[in-house]
């Protein structure tokens, strides 16, 4: 009995390890990391109060229209009626993200029919530094999105294997996916590439799979068109990258080197994943793996055309590589078992586990520490409460802090990371940067006046970003009054 289900026990341990790892960091600070978490909190508060999504935000960009995929916010609000806030905002997203390990296990098992390979894939997926960096303690809609995203792939594989009971589930989850995040378009694109790859192999999809693929394309397109209609009309196809200003896009491509990318994705995942792609394309006729190659191709295409935010694109890549890695392991094990040395597999396993610890778990740990370091601490909440007691005015905070200031200080902000429908995003980003750098007093004062800025919030994150110890402009002029002068500085513009 125990021997039959050993893999389930290992999987449970793996799930609990990942969850513990995440919760250990997530619960260590009272606030969240990343501005997006606070945008979510504000939406949830709004729904609790008005029973509807916030479509106009008085505080962001001094007042702007919002277009959002609403389901995740409703899900959190609904959960909050029954469970404590700490559980809903801090623990629930981490549970959902840890469940990815379980889904990856079952997907890889269906692809390989080998428990060992599937467990390694699950382990790899639990400790991808980039995923940890993007999702830990961030109350991100990706927690629910990626779970459903991968479950859809899993159901499709099962349906391909003839288990038609999963069709209804696939249809149901297809409805949910575009309501959680516009990344559902990547799912559609991945299915299209999957179809193309199958056709390229002179094969064809099963009739039911064809129907599901078509259905998903129609459904996701229609739902996204309805939700983001105005943005499609305003930004056209570049909506996919959320109207990201060219300055920000350039910054991303400068920040990422090939080596750091390899490190973030997990070296073991990438190497084994690439081997998996090679095997899938040239050595086997296992068409289900094409789903994940299709996903990689679709993301690479979007990245190449700069149609997707770099960090989001890479996030999608990072969840597909562990599965491909698991797929390749099956063939590596087979190859090794044919060698004459009796203990080759054992040595390989030791090397593999050691590599995973070194290149996935350890980088995940350092990434998690960094995530928590950049999170909102008690001290920062106290500093922002100073700002809350002041009269209303526009606050200049860093790009990554806009919603946080909205949430804690209840003040209007000049900018945040949501650029959708903001036509002058390029100018605002440029002005914010130049004001923080404060290289010319005259130009800085002009820019402050043009943007009607009343307060400046200068956190340690802003200091690090602009490599500055203080807000330079405050030192050279009498027009700025210091309201809070610790790690988190607050200034008021008085003339």
């Amino acid at each position, binding site marked *: 009995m125990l021997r039959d289900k050993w893999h389930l026990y290992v999987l449970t341990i793996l799930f609990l390890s990942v969850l513990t790892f995440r919760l250990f960091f997530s619960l260590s600070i009272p606030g969240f990391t990343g501005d997006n978490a606070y945008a979510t909190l504000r939406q949830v508060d709004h729904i609790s109060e008005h029973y509807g999504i916030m479509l106009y935000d008085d505080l962001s960009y001094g007042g702007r229209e919002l277009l959002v995929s609403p389901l995740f916010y409703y899900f959190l609000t609904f959960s909050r009626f029954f469970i404590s806030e700490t559980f809903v905002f801090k623990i629930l997203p981490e549970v959902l993200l840890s469940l990815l390990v379980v889904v990856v296990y079952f997907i890889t098992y269906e692809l390989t029919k080998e428990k060992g390979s599937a467990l390694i894939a699950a382990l790899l997926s639990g400790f991808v530094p980039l995923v940890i960096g993007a999702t830990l303690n961030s109350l991100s809609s990706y927690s629910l999105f990626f779970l459903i995203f991968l479950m859809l792939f899993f159901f499709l594989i099962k349906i391909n294997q003839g288990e038609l009971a999963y069709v209804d589930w696939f*249809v149901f989850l297809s409805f949910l996916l575009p309501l959680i995040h516009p990344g559902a378009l990547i799912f559609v694109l991945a299915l299209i590439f999957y179809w193309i790859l199958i056709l390229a192999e002179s094969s064809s999809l099963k009739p039911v799979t064809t129907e599901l693929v*078509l259905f998903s394309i*129609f*459904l996701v397109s*229609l739902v996204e068109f*309805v939700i983001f209609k105005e943005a*499609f*009309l305003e930004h056209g*196809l570049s909506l996919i990258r959320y109207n990201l200003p060219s300055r920000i896009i350039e910054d991303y491509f400068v920040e990422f080197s090939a080596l750091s990318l390899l490190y973030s994705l997990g070296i073991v995942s990438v190497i084994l994943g690439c081997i998996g792609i090679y095997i899938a394309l040239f050595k086997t006729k296992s068409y289900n793996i094409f789903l994940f190659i299709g996903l990689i191709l679709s993301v690479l295409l979007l990245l190449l055309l700069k149609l997707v935010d770099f960090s989001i694109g890479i996030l999608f890549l990072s969840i597909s590589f562990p599965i491909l890695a698991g797929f390749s392991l099956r063939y590596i094990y087979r190859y090794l078992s044919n060698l004459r040395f009796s203990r080759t597999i054992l040595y390989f396993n030791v090397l593999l586990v050691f590599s995973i610890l070194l290149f996935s778990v350890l980088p995940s740990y350092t990434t998690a520490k960094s995530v928590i370091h950049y999170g909102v601490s008690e001290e920062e909440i106290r500093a922002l409460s100073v700002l809350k007691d002041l009269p209303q005015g526009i606050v200049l905070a860093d790009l990554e802090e806009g919603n946080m200031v909205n949430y804690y200080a209840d003040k209007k902000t000049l900018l945040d990371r949501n650029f959708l429908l903001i036509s002058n995003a390029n100018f605002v980003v440029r002005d914010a940067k130049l004001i923080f750098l404060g290289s010319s007093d005259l130009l800085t004062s002009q820019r402050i006046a043009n943007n009607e800025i009343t307060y400046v919030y200068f956190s340690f994150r802003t200091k690090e970003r602009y490599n500055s110890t203080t807000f330079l402009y405050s030192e050279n002029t009498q027009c700025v009054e210091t309201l809070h002068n610790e790690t988190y500085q607050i200034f008021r513009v008085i003339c």
Partner: protein
Amino acid sequence: MKPIKFSELSVDYLFFGLGLLICIAVLGFSNFSTDYLVGDESYLHLRLLGSGDYDPLSYGGRSVDYPTGFGIVLRWFTFLFEPVLAAKVLHFTLGILSFTLFFFILRKLTLLVEEKRLALFFLVFSPTFIYLFSFSGSFSLAIFLALGSFLLLLYEHNALATFLILLISYVNVYAVFFNLILLFIYAVWNKKSVKWATLTFLLSIFFTMYLYGLELGYREPVYLSELISDFGGEYGIAFFSLILSFFGFMVIWKRPYSKFFTYGMFTLLYLLLFFYSWILFYFIFFLSLLAALGLYEFITRRWESTLIKHFSLLLLILGVLFSGISYLERVDELGPTAKMINAFSVLEEFPKYQESTIFSQVSRGNWVSYFTHHKNFADTNYLNAPYSYTRLDDHNTLLFSGNENEVRDLTVDYNIQYIFLDGEVLNILLESGRSGILEVLDADPTLYTLLYEGDDVQLWRVNP
């Protein structure tokens, strides 16, 4: 009691009647929901009504070396209605008549009756059709004549067809050339009418060249997002109709139709789309047919799961309806908007120096001249426009260079007295992160004075 039996013919007319009612409702809404006229070219014809040899306001003054047929027909309508209403009624009438012609053309084609009926509905709900017969100007008349000539051809009234084709030369030059290419492909396929087609082709070409010369004028670049209405295209096709048309394309492959005609036609339309966005006005009739073939294939094919079948069909129908309805919802944003018209009325009250010009984006040129009675710098009527390429280069320099001296020199050269900027150009500048002309206008208040600033509209005076 005897059960009522419907013949195939009466069912056909029943569907046509239903389609016509929807067409009347859709075009009625798009044409008459605003007090003012939407669109660009109609304002040119509304101003001149097809009369005169010289236009003193376009491009600072030019001779009328372009087709004025639409303006002449519009003048006839102004005997019955006031000018703006006349333009709307003309578009509306041409739309209804073209829809009827399309129905009779479909009846002559060897397709399944269900597919023909579906095609009518795809056409009515397509944003391109709505734009064509609400705001497009001369293209509405040109397409109507083209459909008429094609129907006559199908009924083998070749002489009458030739007459209509020659009439198109008086309406729209671009439509003439494209119409002739389609005609030629049809004739080669049909084999019976090759001689006639060659003769008509040559006659029409020489006639058009005789009237307007050889130069077709400046060609505006085409962007992918312009071709699809749901991505913001002004008269793009509906996304879901496009998807269905791909399936329709595959259906045609399996049927014993002439591959030469269908694929030749589509390849041509598809290629030309990348050069001229107005090709969509022709494309939409073929696309409606293809989308209908695609949808009918979806309905009749054997599905493994009826649940997915029903959901997919529902989504497709909703998608097509969504594109059409959301397009109707934004017709008043296509321009000129009420805000722009307000701004123009302000400008009309300011002094007009002799020979002075108003600078605006090219796409606003016809509006500037119609509403303010001032000379425009340039407009979209490029055919035989004087020094159009130089003017368009200078137009871009003025808007985007941000160079004070260059801007000043050009305002003097072209005698520009006022500068009109609206949301579109401001957005282009903002999104590109460039200040362009805004920086120049802001730089020295003695040189440029802000006369009016409304929502998304700015009017500047160039001080002498």
